[in-house]
């Protein structure tokens, strides 16, 4: 180890002594060197806004971010006046901001049994950010949206390799008009290239597959988009069966709303019986609000409420904290579960599905308790 590294370890030790726990190192976990995929370690998901530099990264293939000086956003399809906007022109339109969760549809895939092919995300393909740009409804109003369009087709500037199908998508126009934003800023900074610069679609409450990066086209149409990433990928069974059950495409529907979920981001590994410790985490849902988060130390027989953080926006995550006092020594297991504003409760076991989407089982941590 270098001298500099030793000094840094020393500084971390000082921080540890001051705050009780080691200061987490800023880092990502590489799930794919190329096309770049990386998840955020849980100990960095303890703030209301997830910093851009540690925000999880997901690509289908190696994309070249468009040059923001020559990039255009095309709005065509069922509109009276098709548009082709430069970034400067986009930025002159009324600004809108949403603070909300972006979660990869496949976050937690590694936790399903039996195993499912795909990136083996665990807990950290998720983050909460402040997205700023232009409302989809303002863009489509400017273009003169025609009656009869039901689906918003979206495309990005990334081209697939070989014979890989293009990542062309659509979502219900109603959702896009209600909540959608074409975002060019992330947490007050220009949207980073790895997150879709110059602009990406933001669909609060819906899984990341709808959040088209390097956005190049918005096109309202009467019918949904076709192709692999609509007809095969990103579909969820209408009536999930036993684990291992494979369904045909027509027995499934596109993944949309996130499932209610709470994750423990910070807990001590050790505690003393009778001495309280703090456990922290975050919770979110496809519903606009989280109603409560509860923890259990007896496998779900009894639950006690966590304290929800004050920072709060529709479809954002809610930080929570919980003071826990172990009664006796030995290994204790804490589980967390969330309930959203629609009354959906996080289940003990996530529902297995053949593509491994939207894992949301109870998250647990083990704590060694000494007398």
């Amino acid at each position, binding site marked *: 180890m270098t001298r500099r590294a030793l000094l840094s370890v020393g500084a971390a030790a000082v921080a540890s002594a001051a705050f009780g726990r080691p200061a987490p190192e800023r*880092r990502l976990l590489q799930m794919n060197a190329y096309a770049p*995929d990386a998840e955020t370690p849980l100990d960095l998901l303890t703030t209301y806004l997830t910093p851009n530099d540690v925000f999880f990264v997901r690509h289908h293939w190696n994309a070249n971010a468009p040059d923001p000086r020559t990039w255009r956003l095309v709005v065509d399809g069922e509109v009276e006046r098709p548009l082709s906007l430069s970034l400067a022109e986009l930025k002159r339109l009324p600004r809108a901001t949403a603070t909300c969760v972006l979660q990869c549809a496949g976050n937690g895939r590694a936790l399903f049994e039996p195993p499912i092919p795909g990136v*083996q995300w665990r807990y950290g393909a998720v983050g909460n950010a402040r997205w700023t740009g232009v409302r989809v409804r303002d863009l489509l109003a400017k273009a003169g949206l025609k009656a009869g369009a039901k689906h918003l087709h979206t495309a990005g500037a990334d081209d697939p390799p070989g014979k890989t199908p293009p990542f062309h998508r659509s979502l219900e126009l109603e959702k896009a008009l209600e909540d959608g934003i074409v975002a060019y800023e992330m947490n007050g900074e220009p949207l980073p290239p790895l997150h879709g610069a110059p602009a990406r679609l933001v669909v609060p409450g819906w899984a990341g597959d709808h959040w088209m990066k390097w956005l190049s086209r918005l096109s309202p149409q009467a019918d949904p988009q076709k192709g692999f990433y609509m007809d095969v990928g990103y579909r969820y069974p209408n009536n999930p069966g036993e684990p291992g059950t494979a369904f045909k495409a027509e027995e499934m529907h596109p993944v949309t709303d996130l499932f209610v979920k709470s994750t423990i981001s910070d807990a001590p590994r050790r505690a003393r019986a009778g001495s309280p410790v703090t456990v922290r985490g975050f919770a979110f849902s496809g519903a606009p609000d989280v109603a409560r988060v509860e923890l259990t130390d007896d496998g779900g027989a009894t639950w006690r409420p966590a304290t929800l953080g004050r920072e709060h926006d529709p479809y954002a995550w809610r930080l929570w904290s919980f003071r826990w006092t172990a009664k006796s020594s030995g290994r204790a297991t804490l589980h967390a579960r969330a309930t959203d504003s629609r009354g959906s409760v996080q289940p003990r076991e996530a529902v297995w599905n053949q593509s491994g989407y939207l894992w949301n089982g109870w998250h647990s941590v083990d704590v060694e308790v000494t007398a």
Partner: protein
Amino acid sequence: MSRGRGAVLLAFGLAFAAPAAELPRLGTVLVPFPPGVGKEVADQACLNCHSSDVARQQKLTEKQWTATVTKMIGWGAEVRADRKEELIRYLAANFGPGNDSFRPVVVQPIRSSR
């Protein structure tokens, strides 16, 4: 980029949880496929489009690997017809249901730059 250097960085990152200045950047550590019959086919078939990471983290049955390889050939993976079985056997033997060998490379936070 040297694979040997990558392996050293990988070992360092995992063993010591090195501070950020010592961590590799995303995409700079390329871990090779493990040696064995079929590695050469895997190198040729898989690594044009993605790193070995995403294959090495799987825990798939031979049936699942057959479906995956067939899908990837359809998408342009270069596999000679007479080497397809060798590739499937290699992937199933190394990255089957009991595979617990994958550890993500710990990488630096990502600086925003164009």
